[in-house]
């Protein structure tokens, strides 16, 4: 089932990805192609198979509650495109 233009647009908004109409069309077509290929996964019998999220077989990896140094304000803001010198600045929250 190919993705509808609405679905593609919806996913783009979920991903906060601006796309030109041309890009949206192209990616929509490419996703159809890929999903078509991927559909073979549905053939595999995995009814009894558990999921694998990680391959390291590790558990209970944690650290002691020891505070360490922070970067500090200047360093924290150094790479930011828009600040007031103390805070990160962003535009209006509400559309």
């Amino acid at each position: 089932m190919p993705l509808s233009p609405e679905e593609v647009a919806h996913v783009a908004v979920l991903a906060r990805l601006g796309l030109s109409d041309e890009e949206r069309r192209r990616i929509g077509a490419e996703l159809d192609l890929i999903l078509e290929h991927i559909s073979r996964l549905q053939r595999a019998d995995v009814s009894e198979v558990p999921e694998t999220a990680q391959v390291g077989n590790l558990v209970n990896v944690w650290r002691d509650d020891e505070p360490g140094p922070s970067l500090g304000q200047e360093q924290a803001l150094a790479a930011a495109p828009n600040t007031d010198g103390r805070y990160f600045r962003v535009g209006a929250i509400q559309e």
Partner: protein
Amino acid sequence: MTTAGLTAAEMARALRRGDVTPRELLDDARAQVSRLDGSLNAFLARTDELADRQALRAAEMLSADAESAGPLCGIPVALKDVLCVDGYPTTAGSRILEGFRPPYTATAVQRLLDAGALPVGKTNCDEFAMGSSTENSAFGPVGNPWDIERVPGGSSGGSAAAVGAGMVPISYGSDTGGSIRQPASLCGVVGFKPTYGRVSRYGLIAFASSLDQVGPFALSVEDAANGYVAVAGHDPSDSTSLPDHVDDPVSVLRHGVNGLRLGVPREYMGEGLDPGVRERVTEAIAVLEGLGAVVQEVSLPSTDLGLSTYYIIAPAECSSNLARYDGIRFGRRVERPTVTDTMMSTREEGFGHEVKRRVMLGTYALSSGYYDAYYRRAQKVRTLIAREFDAVFETVDALVCPTSPKVAFTMGAIQNPIEMYLNDALTIPVNLAGLPGISVPCGFSDGLPVGLQVIAPRLGDARVFQVAAAYEQATDWHSRRAPIVAAA
């Protein structure tokens, strides 16, 4: 005469003989980069001040105690631009990080600095390591040292080309679905992807967290082993880093393969393989058999599901890992009146097409209503694939097969995404199962390098090197250099 094109081991011996200094090795490396990079475009940034400091540090380490100074002391290296270096540009090949300088250094890089290595610069790669040709870099493609018109493979194409062109003897890349082994194969160098968790991911810009591993490129298996040991080991800053002891791969390099059981996965020799690649790999397997290895055909039935599994899991993880590039705290930003529009425009202009496509795919695969059909199912098939490897390793000690179904292809030749993704069909399952794998040069097809892949069970990293070294010692492909290396 220049040291460009020598192996790290040869350089290390020259350093200890006093024939050359770290400073001279660094100057030769820079000369080679200056001479060739205009056409190769392997480097995105130079780390000159850092390398200069390291050259002094290495000289001191060597004069203090040449023996305890490690094999990378005074050796020029290159770092894929997904590895953070405090204060130096780190872009992951993306416009969205243009001008970004991280305030910290990746653990793997820190270990190289402590070992006295000389980082020459940051190498070009597919944007956020997403690609198999390095054509997805926002800063232009990389040429293959064997044929400038062809791709070096990817995503770590810059690191592979830098070693293949004799700019540095050892470089580092990241391998999520073949991004070290496949470009190594296409550039005629050695490329090693460690067991998942063996090398710290702290400071490695994430593509797909459950698959990413850092590993070395080198001109010889021995150099690759030393390059691996220098960065391997537990790191408390990476919760997925393995606490297990690292078996010394260098000590087994001369153990040979006599009596070792080697499996050849039927599915890896199937259709889709270039005839030339099939021939070289078949010959290589025969060489190993000649060295006393017991070769048998084995089967990994779910191999053809690997690509599909990967193209759900990797995009899903990347769609989340790349959410932090929103133009607020670092990197590029396209200013708009509202926060949402700023984020959307920033990511529209900051990301390239392949990244957008994968972020879209991953977001879709995780979105409500599709999670079970795609992500959950892919996680289950991932289990199947891992179990098939486990089963096979009950009967064989290692697997040998092609690294890439193709030799280096001409830039722009592949437009269809599936066709491009198929370049990683033989490397992806190894990442899904978290296994160690290496690609070692095994000859040429139409004058282009072919790579032999060796795969071992989890934590069998040393065995991978043992098999690769035995093959290397029986052949002389590794001593071949691309013509441009010496051309003056």
